[in-house]
Every structure is written in C-alpha cells, then in structure tokens.
C-alpha cells in the first residue's frame, strides 16, 4: 500500500509504472503477478451544477486524512484479492482541469481491480476529511455533499 496526501501534482504514468513494479513478484513463486491494473483520476471540472468553476481549494484535516485513506485501502484489501494499491489525494488550490486524486489497483483478475478501484473512490468520497471550496463566476462557495455519493457508498453494503 502507498498513500500520499500532498499539495504537488502527480505523474499518472510514473504512478502506474510503480504500481506495475510493486505488482511483479518473483516469477518462480507463481501467482504473485498482476494480470490487471485499474486506475482512476479525478479532475477539477468546469461545470458543477450549472455554474462555471474556475478553480477550487481543497481543505483537509491533516493526520485524520491519512488515517481515513489508510482505512479505506485496508477495507478494499479485505474485500477484494488485491496485489498492490496506490492512492494520492491533493489539497490546496487547484485550477480547472488539474488532477485531484489518483487511485491505482493491481490484481490477478480484472473484476477485483475494477471493484476495488471503484470501492476506494466511493468510500473515500464519504469518509476522507476533504472539503472543496469552488471559485465560480458568481463568487466562492463550499461544495455541498451529494446524496449520490452516499448512495454509491451504500451499494457496497447491499
């Protein structure tokens, strides 16, 4: 597991290369190697609920953020047979189109990789202590939590 909460941008290609490296075990051991990598990147979108967003600032709760993300990853590892997981979440001011979050997961089979990647995003959205303040054409405003995110997380308990 690798987890980082950082102000700086990240290089998705480099992150995926590291995920691949940490997923390739000793070839003689048999079975340690990944057949599937799923990844997700969240970006700052221009248009949120009809108003134009120019940038956003992500506030977070240092310490608790890392703890919450680690718990999310541990839950994913308990639920799905995974080989390696990398999660990066940025904070601070981000412009339109910038990268916010990276989730990369490797597994023997694609369904575990897809499910874990989606689970991590759904869990993180309802648990990790980040708050977005948007700069729109009509001024600043804090983003409201979405019921759809709560519903997305609830699917995993059905």
């Amino acid at each position, binding site marked *: 597991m690798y987890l980082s909460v950082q102000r700086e941008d990240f290089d998705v290609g480099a992150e995926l290369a590291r995920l691949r490296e940490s997923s390739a075990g000793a070839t003689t051991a048999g079975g340690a190697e990944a057949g599937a990598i799923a990844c997700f990147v969240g970006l700052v979108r221009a248009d949120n609920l009809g108003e134009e967003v120019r940038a956003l600032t992500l506030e977070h*709760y240092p310490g608790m953020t890392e703890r919450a993300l680690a718990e999310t990853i541990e839950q994913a590892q308990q639920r799905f047979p995974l080989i390696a997981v990398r999660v990066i979440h940025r904070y601070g001011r981000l412009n339109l189109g910038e990268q916010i979050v990276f989730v990369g997961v490797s597994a023997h089979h694609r369904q575990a990789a897809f499910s874990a990647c989606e689970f991590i995003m759904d869990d993180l959205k309802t648990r990790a202590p980040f708050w977005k303040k948007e700069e729109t054409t009509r001024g600043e405003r804090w983003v409201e939590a979405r019921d759809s995110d709560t519903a997305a997380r609830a699917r995993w308990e059905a």
Partner: protein
Amino acid sequence: MLKPMSVRILYFAALADRLGVRSEHVELPPGIVSVDGLRTHLAARGGVWADLGTFPKLRAAVNQRMAGGDAPIQAGDEVAFFPPVTGG
C-alpha cells in the same frame, strides 16, 4: 472535587468560516462526556457559537476518527467538527 477536563477542538471548512475559529483549547466543566454534550456546551457560549448547535448535517471526529454524537470524550482528546466531506 473533579478537575476540569482539557480538550483540543478543531473546526473545518464552512463551519470554520462561520465561527471564525479553526481551533481552540477548552477547559470543560465536569459532566461533559460525549460529543453531543460538548457541542451543546460550546453552543451555549452564545453569539456565533449558537450556530454550532444548529449547523446542518454536522459531523464530528474524536482523535481523528469519525464519531457519532454519543461517542465518549476524555481529557486530552482531539475533537473535530465539520460539514459532510466533499473530497475525491
């Protein structure tokens, strides 16, 4: 006689903006044993603090873990209040 209990309190995002405070150390009188008890005590300070009592969908964490209103608090705890999270 019971000693006063010291806790650290953090506020985040829209709540911190509303209160104009991001963190404080408070000495609590005896009898405040839960997150809800603490919230009521702080709101009773009046003025802008009344908003803490009525803030919609308020969430809390004790020692950096999500906590419900009946979660216990002890001397030395770090308690945080904040709106629902919106990361990712």
